[in-house]
């Protein structure tokens, strides 16, 4: 491409034209190419002319201001002065502008002069520019840079800027391509201008989404930019990577006044050696140049070309006032040289509360670093604000440590931070961690259900937050200081110290959620069973920041559980014991009175016995029967019932039964036997009482002589009739020390059946025993053929409603 030339001078022949013509001068394609090239050259020449004119116009403007003359006079002065100085009017114009501006471009121009001089001295033949270019560039490199600036400022789109930059400033440095990226507010990059890259490649790279690591992206975030020796070594993708895989790359943030608008990326065809400071500064100057163009760059929108709404600080202040978190509106504060020095806190919203507790008026209007000098320190708050302002990329972080210096005392607070750029202002929102408050509000609902107290303990500041329920749970006034977790053991039962120690170790050392149950000893002397559950909260640096959790009063639950456990144990034990006792009782019963006893062999007399234990094993008790042949041929018939149930009753039963057998051998009558038996019962341990009926049957006379001790009299079944024998007087056994028993005698006949029984057979609550007996006997009628059948049936149809054991003894004459 051609370099800019002074107006009216013919453009130089560049290599491309020569090669294009020389290659295929006669082919249609060659002709077309030549035509295109010619037309391009004309356009470029016109552009260069315009650029040159722009410089001259600028110089004229300066002269107008300096000399106080009109534009025509200024033009004449310029021409004359240039002639006198033996320089072209363009070069003279540049000198004028340089002197007037005294800006950065001037220093860079000087440096550029030195650098390009060195390059040209080292390799004069490698000058990529053509003759015309050499004419200008060799004579006055300052013109070139100014021309680039002028072109950039005059260009109405960034594409023109890219072209100008490449041709006028970068090719002399050996660069072959340039890309100008505009940074979106979201961190995306848009290729707004490029030169030297194939159009298709540039088109492919027209947009780079946020968070895609490219060379330009790196350049955006690194203030010093990226100076890459060889693109291939970085592995980073970028536009033109395939054209210049091993070439050097430079990507610089393009910013003005501390704000980055985009990135200037420059490509070299070969690896780029470290550049001298002059070149670095020159390129930085070019990046700044780009920034001016990018500043006014408006990203294309889908819906028409409506102007981008750039909220000014006033709008942002209203937005901030509508937020429910503390928010600050920051505007850049530039130093005298136009560099970003600080941010002024333009506005603080109504929710704003200074972490250090200062009034809003003190903070509002102050400079950020003045209000929060520590922001420059560890917290990097300032750096983040600066970066957001520069890149427009929002910053969000949780658990950031904010430090405010109040009277030289650093006060820490942990906050969630949000920083975003809006127009030329930055909105800084922080939410001072009031997790505890939110937790508390949550737990207030839970508390109703579970008596839960919430706490949060900041391990850095030592600040402890309790909700009201926790104070109540601890039995401490709401105004008293909360108890730190570390001191928990001092408020707990000494036996729980180990459990609490384990809990704290898990939580604070292993930094894992933990729980423990302990006995809280409250100041009022009340002991509550408390379950504490807590979890660690780590900050962004993985440091243990705070511990939060909840305590639940589980006293009621605890005692219920303890009571249940004890009852269960007790029950299990008792059940086992009872089962053993019942089994023993039954074994005892069976040992003494086998359910199927060998029939007693007496002439003309059937004797049968039945014993039916209670259905419920525990109720097996003290019933007994006996039917034995006594010396002398009489038969002792007896049924008895010791009061109560279980092993004691069974034991007493054994004693009484054996005693009666022994006493009966004396030949005494039944009244006497029971009298003696009463003495035995009375002297038994535990003051046991028993009832019994005792009869002596004389087979020869078919008579039964009998007496009763509080027991139901025998029943005589004769034909269809069944009648109890008369109720002779007789006190139950064991109630009094000594008593006598009335005797009676019954005459039996052949076919008569006599029954003795215990009340398990007939006892009912709802009717007298006589009635129950009569009802039973009528049911078992007609009298069965055998005595055994009779007894079985009686047991079968027994309608006793008490689950008692039952004994039944029967004799049938005949």
């Amino acid at each position, binding site marked *: 491409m051609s370099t800019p030339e002074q107006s009216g001078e013919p453009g130089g022949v560049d290599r491309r034209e020569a090669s294009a013509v020389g290659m295929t001068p006669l082919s249609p394609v060659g002709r077309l190419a030549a035509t295109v090239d010619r037309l391009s050259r004309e356009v470029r020449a016109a552009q260069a002319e315009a650029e040159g004119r722009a410089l001259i116009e600028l110089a004229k403007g300066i002269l107008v201001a300096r000399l106080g003359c009109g534009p025509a006079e200024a033009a004449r002065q310029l021409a004359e002065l240039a002639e006198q100085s033996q320089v072209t009017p363009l070069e003279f114009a540049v000198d004028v502008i340089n002197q007037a501006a005294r800006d950065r471009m001037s220093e860079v121009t000087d440096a550029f002069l030195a650098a390009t001089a060195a390059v040209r001295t080292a390799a004069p033949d490698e000058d990529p520019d053509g003759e015309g270019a050499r004419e200008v560039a060799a004579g006055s490199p300052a013109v070139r840079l100014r021309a680039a600036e002028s072109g950039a400022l005059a260009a109405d789109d960034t594409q023109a800027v890219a072209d100008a930059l490449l041709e006028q400033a970068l090719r002399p440095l050996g660069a072959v391509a340039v890309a100008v990226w505009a940074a979106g507010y979201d961190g995306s990059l848009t290729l707004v201008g490029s030169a030297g890259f194939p159009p298709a490649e540039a088109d492919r790279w027209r947009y780079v989404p946020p968070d895609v690591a490219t060379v330009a992206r790196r350049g955006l975030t690194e203030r010093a930019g990226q100076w890459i020796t060889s693109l291939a070594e970085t592995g980073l993708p970028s536009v033109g990577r395939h054209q210049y895989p091993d070439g050097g790359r430079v990507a610089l943030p393009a910013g003005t006044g501390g704000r980055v608008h985009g990135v200037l990326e420059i490509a070299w065809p070969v690896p780029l050696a470290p550049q001298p400071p002059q070149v670095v500064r020159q390129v930085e100057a070019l990046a700044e140049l780009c920034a001016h163009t990018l500043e006014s760059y408006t990203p294309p929108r889908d819906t028409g070309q409506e102007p981008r709404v750039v909220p000014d600080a006033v709008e942002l202040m209203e937005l901030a006032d509508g937020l429910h978190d503390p928010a600050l509106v920051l505007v850049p504060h530039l130093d005298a040289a136009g560099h970003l020095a600080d941010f002024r806190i333009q506005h603080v919203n109504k929710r704003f509360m200074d972490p250090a507790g200062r009034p809003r008026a003190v903070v509002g209007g102050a400079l950020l670093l003045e209000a929060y000098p520590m922001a420059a320190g560890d917290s990097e708050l300032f750096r983040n604000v600066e970066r957001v302002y520069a890149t427009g990329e929002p910053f969000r972080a949780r658990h950031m440590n904010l430090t405010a210096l109040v009277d030289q005392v650093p006060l820490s607070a942990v906050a969630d931070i949000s920083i975003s750029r809006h127009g030329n202002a930055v909105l800084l929102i922080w939410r001072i961690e009031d997790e505890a408050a939110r937790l508390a509000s949550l737990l207030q609902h839970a508390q109703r259900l579970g008596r839960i107290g919430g706490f949060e303990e900041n391990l850095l500041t030592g600040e402890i937050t309790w909700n009201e329920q926790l104070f109540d749970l601890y039995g401490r006034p709401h105004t008293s200081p909360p108890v730190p977790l570390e001191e928990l053991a001092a408020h707990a039962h000494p036996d729980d110290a180990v459990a609490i120690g384990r809990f704290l170790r898990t939580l604070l050392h292993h930094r894992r959620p933990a729980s423990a149950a302990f006995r809280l000893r409250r100041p009022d002397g009340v002991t509550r069973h408390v379950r504490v559950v807590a979890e660690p909260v780590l900050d962004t640096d993985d440091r243990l920041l705070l511990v939060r959790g909840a305590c639940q009063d589980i006293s009621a639950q605890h005692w219920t559980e303890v009571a249940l456990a004890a009852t269960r144990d007790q029950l299990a034990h008792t059940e086992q014991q009872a089962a053993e006792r019942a089994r023993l009782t039954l074994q005892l019963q069976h040992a003494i009175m086998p359910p199927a006893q060998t029939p007693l062999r007496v002439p003309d007399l059937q004797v049968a016995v039945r014993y039916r234990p209670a259905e419920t094993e525990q109720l097996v008790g003290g019933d007994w029967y006996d039917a034995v042949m006594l010396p002398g041929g009489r038969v002792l018939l007896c049924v008895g019932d010791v009061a109560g149930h279980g092993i004691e009753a069974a034991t007493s039963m054994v004693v009484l039964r054996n005693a009666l057998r022994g006493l009966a051998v004396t030949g005494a009558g039944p009244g006497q036997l029971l009298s003696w038996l009463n003495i035995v019962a009375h002297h038994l341990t535990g*003051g046991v*009482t028993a009832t019994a009926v005792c009869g002596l049957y004389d087979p020869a006379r078919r008579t039964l002589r009998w007496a009763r001790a509080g027991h139901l009299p025998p029943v005589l079944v004769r034909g269809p009739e069944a009648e109890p024998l008369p109720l002779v*007087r007789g006190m139950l056994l064991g109630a009094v020390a000594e*008593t006598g028993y009335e005797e009676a005698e019954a005459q039996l006949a052949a076919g008569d059946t006599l029954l003795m029984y215990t009340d398990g057979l007939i006892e009912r609550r709802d*009717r007298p025993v006589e009635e129950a007996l009569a009802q039973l006997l009528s049911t078992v009628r007609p009298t069965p053929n055998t005595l055994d059948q009779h007894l079985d049936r009686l047991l079968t149809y027994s309608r006793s409603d008490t689950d008692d054991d039952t004994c039944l003894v029967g004799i049938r004459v005949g």
Partner: protein
Amino acid sequence: MPIAQNPLSVEVTLPREEVALIKVEGYLDVDTATEFQHHLANQLHHGRRHFLLDLSAVPFMDSSGMNIILRVYQEVRELPGSVHIISPTPAVLRVLDLTGVSITVPVSGSIEEALSRVDAEPEGPRVPEA
């Protein structure tokens, strides 16, 4: 077995200083005997020597209930004191006769009758007949 369906009601009044009139309502059986015994033991503990047991509202009494009566009888006999049963229902009277307890423990038709018996023989233990 019915349990706790017929709760025992025991009401104690003191017609004389050492006389406890105990009106029982409900079944006196294995389920309620213990409670009945506690009431009697409590009165013994407070120095009552004469026990008037109004059983007019006891429809049923089994051997457990009877044993409680016998036990208090044995206790007060040594003091000396006495136990009287007042207006038993037929079923209960039947049990008392059957077991022979009525031989030892006098049965009265009314509170007044029982009180007059207490007044008549306050000095010593009653010697059972027969």
